[in-house]
């Protein structure tokens, strides 16, 4: 690719760096407002966008108290991690079964199409009946949300896993079968570990989707339990016109996913591209 001209395009680089302002500006605004006191917020732009007089964490402490930050964080983490774990186990199993059988058996092919077509069903049509149904089943809580996510992500993940199977030759599992291992055992010892690249993609797509989702917990979870995004919605009235407090809370809500992104940036970009293109 880079054999002839190694010269890089400086002009374009500069344009791209300037373009970053569109990404950075809203975030810069959020940071400076979050650190300021209401008295510093004069009515002109300079008052709003100048750096705070002193970098105090008071707003963040207050925001944590008002929005019950730690509980929301734990709830969000629990929902996301449980959904990822369940998705990887359940979806790789069904993806394996359907991927291996759909070419040979009409029965499994129809099941595959049935599950994958679930991708077209918008949450808006399931929402109202699901609220009633989960309430009747005693699932108007985090467990219900986890279960629903596992079902909602099933179509896409089944497609991803069964597509990935093409990379794993049949000979691999047949050798194990000859050695007397059961199908179940073969899956866990041979197939599951070999699906690792797809596990990463599924984990990342599921994590981004569930962590930021508002609608499902909003309608399903009853009582005073919040996820991190839901807390921002539910505490809007408490923030009132104290934007400094509100922005401190928003930043706290963004912080975990940004930290995750900084740590696993490469895998996230690769995973998202991988998932969409397949």
């Amino acid at each position, binding site marked *: 690719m880079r054999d002839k001209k190694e010269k890089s395009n400086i002009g374009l680089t500069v344009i791209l760096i300037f373009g970053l302002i569109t990404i950075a500006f809203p975030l810069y605004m959020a940071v400076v407002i979050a650190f300021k006191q209401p008295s510093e917020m004069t009515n002109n*732009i300079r008052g709003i966008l100048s750096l705070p007089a002193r970098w105090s964490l008071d707003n963040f402490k207050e925001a944590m108290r008002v929005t019950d930050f730690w509980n929301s964080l734990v709830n969000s983490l629990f929902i996301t991690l449980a959904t990822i774990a369940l998705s990887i186990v359940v979806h790789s199993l069904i993806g394996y079964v359907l991927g291996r059988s759909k070419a040979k058996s009409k029965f*499994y092919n129809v*099941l595959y199409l049935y599950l994958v077509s679930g991708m077209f069903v918008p949450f808006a049509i399931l929402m*109202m009946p699901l609220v009633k149904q989960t309430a009747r089943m005693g699932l108007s809580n985090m467990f219900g949300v986890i279960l629903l996510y596992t079902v909602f992500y099933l179509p896409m993940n089944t497609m991803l896993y069964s597509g990935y199977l093409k990379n794993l030759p049949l*000979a691999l599992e047949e050798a194990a079968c000859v050695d007397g291992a059961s199908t179940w055992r073969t899956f866990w010892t041979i197939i599951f570990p070999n699906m690792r690249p797809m596990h990463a993609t599924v984990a990342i797509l599921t994590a981004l989707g569930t962590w930021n989702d508002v609608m499902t917990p909003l309608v399903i979870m009853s009582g005073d339990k919040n996820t991190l995004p839901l807390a921002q919605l539910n505490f809007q009235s408490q923030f009132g016109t104290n934007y400094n407090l509100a922005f401190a809370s928003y930043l706290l809500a963004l912080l975990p996913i940004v930290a995750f992104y900084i740590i696993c940036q490469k895998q996230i970009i690769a995973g998202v*591209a991988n998932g969409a*293109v397949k």
Partner: protein
Amino acid sequence: MKGNGKTENKKGKTGAGYGKGKWREIIENGKSRTFLLITIPIVALFFLFNTLPLIQGVVYSFTNFRGYGSYDWVGLRNYIDLFRDARVGNSYLFTFKLAVVTTIIVNVLSLLLAMALNSRIKFKNTLRGLYFLPNVLGGLVVGYIFNYFFTYILPELAKLLGFEGNSMLANSKTAWLAIAVVCAWQSIAMNTIIYISGLQTVPEDVYEAGSLDGATGWFKFRHLTFPLIFPFFTINLVLCMKNFLMVFDQIMSLTKGGPAQSTESISYLIYNNGMSGGQFGFQSANAVLFFVVIVVISVTQMTFLGKKEEQL
């Protein structure tokens, strides 16, 4: 080789067993039994939490259920009313306007950005990483941040430049544009990554052959690059349309459907009036219509673009 022979064998067996009855064949085989034992509970779960509520939604759409209390069958009344209801009509108009305009903006900008980020530039990986950041942020919180920007910062900037300093969100003519900007701000990141992976599949010698023939600029893009990345254009178009048609978080945090109900997306209207507005049955009919619309649009897009793909 060995593996290949075995596959053939199995295919032969299934083919022969099909006549005797596929159920016996499925049960007889040990592997098949395990497969069935895995499949049944998972498909049952999917049915219970996806297909069953879908059916219930369709059933409710023929009733005048308010979400509580007793209800009667009303036949197709809800569906007829849907087409007469100005609020529903406006929400479809608004949602489509938003989805189409934002899809165009996002695809033009992200294709340009992808080509820039895929060319010989410095700090390539860092720049890609930073441009992707908006995609991981939650739509609701991003909406709240932009809400402040549109309410307090932009009007002040406009005044400095000598325009009228009103908030875009407070005007029913401009509020949808503000929402489009926020949706685009987040989606460009995702679409750019998809276009970049598309551009990376274009082999360098295609360009070399092209430049020998004197292909440059727009001509090169139109006749060499674009046809080769067309499948990625298809993905992006379908993904964008679907996501923007279902827009919810941004409405929640930017306008709550206002001003004067001018920015009520379909999802927001179903949520708002169906869950707390006493229109459970009516909004179920709306949701069924919405479902049909999404399926029709996705299928049309895919077959139309699939045909185009073959031509290119």
